[in-house]
């Protein structure tokens, strides 16, 4: 490197990368970590005797329990832990549905469609991706509105008798919005992975009499695993970290964990607790993704392909 680009350029390149990783990534995260252990104090008391490290901000997660029941068991659970578990659960649900929607299309694009029309198809898929996320969520806000087109259509064809309050049914609106917003982040990695599969393998399996579901189960899916893993990680992290969609399409009963963080930060102005919560979100999601990758035996470097 030194020989090829000379000392000046090498130094410049290293400095740029160092600025990125240190000033924009590592130091901010260390600061976040450090701040999360400090109490929220008025400006004059910062650095004073009460400004000591403690786990108090993290323990706030355990405050104020609510009664919930699941499968007939009723138990009491801290409200923020509850929010967090639901966030994780619904993010997983979104990921699974996105995969179910995207996989047939990815296979179609990679193996069935006429290669001449593929670029046009890709372009048409890209158009919604270029439209901003907030507008896509807003579009669903219109569609799901109580007097909106979806209810009008369903009433029109007689599927329902009375209009449904879509955005007031727990997490329904949020899940619908997240799927629409992030399904393409699943489609493209899976498509890339399926595309690299040799079509001869599929034909050989067909010739040997394998049924279509077995071809997918034993040949296409195992081959596409890195793509599926990277798509899933993307969709999961984007969903769990999304603030826009839950805020726009959420109901009164659908609190997303990012909304809790937002409230600490913007409404309570308690940056320290917000830091603690943000750090919890980051670390728990990381743990979750690491476990998922370990289970599916894929590496982080595979994800970026």
């Amino acid at each position, binding site marked *: *490197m030194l020989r*090829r*680009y000379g000392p*000046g*350029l090498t130094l410049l*390149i*290293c400095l*740029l*990368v160092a600025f*990125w*990783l240190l000033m*924009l*990534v590592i130091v*901010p995260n260390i*600061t*976040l970590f450090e701040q999360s252990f400090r109490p929220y104090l008025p*400006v004059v008391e910062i650095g004073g005797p009460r400004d000591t490290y403690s786990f108090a901000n993290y323990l706030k997660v355990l405050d104020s329990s609510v009664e919930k029941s699941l499968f007939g068991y009723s138990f009491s659970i801290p409200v923020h832990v509850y929010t967090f578990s639901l966030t994780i659960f619904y993010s997983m649900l979104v990921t699974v549905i996105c995969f179910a929607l995207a996989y*047939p299309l990815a*296979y179609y694009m990679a193996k069935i469609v006429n290669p001449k029309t593929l670029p046009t198809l890709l372009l*048409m898929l890209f*158009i*919604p991706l*270029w*439209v*901003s*996320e*907030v*507008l*896509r*969520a*807003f*579009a*669903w*806000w*219109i569609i799901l*509105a109580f*007097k*909106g*087109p979806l209810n*009008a259509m369903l009433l029109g064809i007689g599927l329902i008798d009375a209009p449904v309050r879509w955005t007031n049914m727990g997490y329904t609106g949020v899940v619908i919005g997240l799927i*629409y917003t992030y399904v393409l982040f699943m489609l493209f990695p899976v498509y890339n992975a399926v595309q690299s599969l040799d079509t001869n393998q599929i034909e050989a399996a067909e010739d040997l009499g394998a049924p*279509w579901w077995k071809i997918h189960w034993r040949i296409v899916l195992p081959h596409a695993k890195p793509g599926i893993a990277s798509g899933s990680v993307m969709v999961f*992290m984007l969903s769990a*970290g*999304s*603030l826009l969609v839950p*805020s*726009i399409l959420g109901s009164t009963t659908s609190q997303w964990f990012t909304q809790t963080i*937002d409230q600490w*930060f913007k409404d309570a102005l308690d*940056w320290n607790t*917000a830091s603690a919560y*943000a*750090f919890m979100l*980051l670390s728990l*999601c990381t743990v979750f*993704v690491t476990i998922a990758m370990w289970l599916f035996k894929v590496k*982080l*470097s595979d994800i*970026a392909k």
Partner: protein
Amino acid sequence: MHKLRQNLSHLYTVLFLCYLIAPLVVMSGAAFNDSKLPSIVPWKGWTGRWFVDLWNDDRMLMAFANTLWVAAAVAVISVIIGTAAAILINSISGRVRTVLYSMMIATILIPGVVIGISTMIMWTKLGGALFGPEGKPFPFVPGLHLSVLGQVSYIAAMVMLLVLARLQSFDPGLEEAALDLGASHGQVMRRILLPHLYPAIFAGGAVAFFQSIENFNVTQFTRGGADTLTVYVFSKVRSGITPTINALAFLLICVTLVLAVIYEINRRRRARIEAAREAEARRAEEMAEVTGVA
């Protein structure tokens, strides 16, 4: 049976495209409906007044200008940092490479909320440590410049991936040859390496620009009092929706469509030229065979 499955998959693709595009159509349609609430039912007749309202909405125009500035800044900085990172990753190996590369990739996965809060806290605390709690100077106060830095922290990784992919097809022998022939290091970079990377750099710049326009999470936590388009639309959606947002959405979708059509026409023209050239080459070859020149 095979035929049936094939038809089903065609049908599925069409349905999927409808699913993707229908919400955008509904949203655009509501821009022309003469109703105070943005919707297409009940239809109350055509109107263009939401576009007039949009044009008169100064805060919106301001937010739009802010968005363009932020996006341009993010694109430029991300391209510079991302390209440097790709060159660095490409010229080292072993453990250091793995660690650096993983760190860079990981930035894409960090939730935007975390990036936003951590950027905000670090810069304001740094300002506080350097200049005391009152009267912090420019870079250490909340504002859109912090949004730029926060967005760069993960968008640079996307640019890095694009440039790195392009670097794979680069022949390092060219650099060696240029150096042997007496080119300076700067010339090697400017004349040989960068021209090869230009397609990826431009693609990276475009991706960075659009990613920045889309960004909400980072901007929301770092922006201070300033608006970007996303933040403004968001606040509008939450408090008192008017169909001006639909008018805006319609215009943005139109811009996207025009760009997409231009791209498609361009691609088809290139494909046709390519095909013609290939046919030409084939004919020449055949001629050569027939006349026995080959």
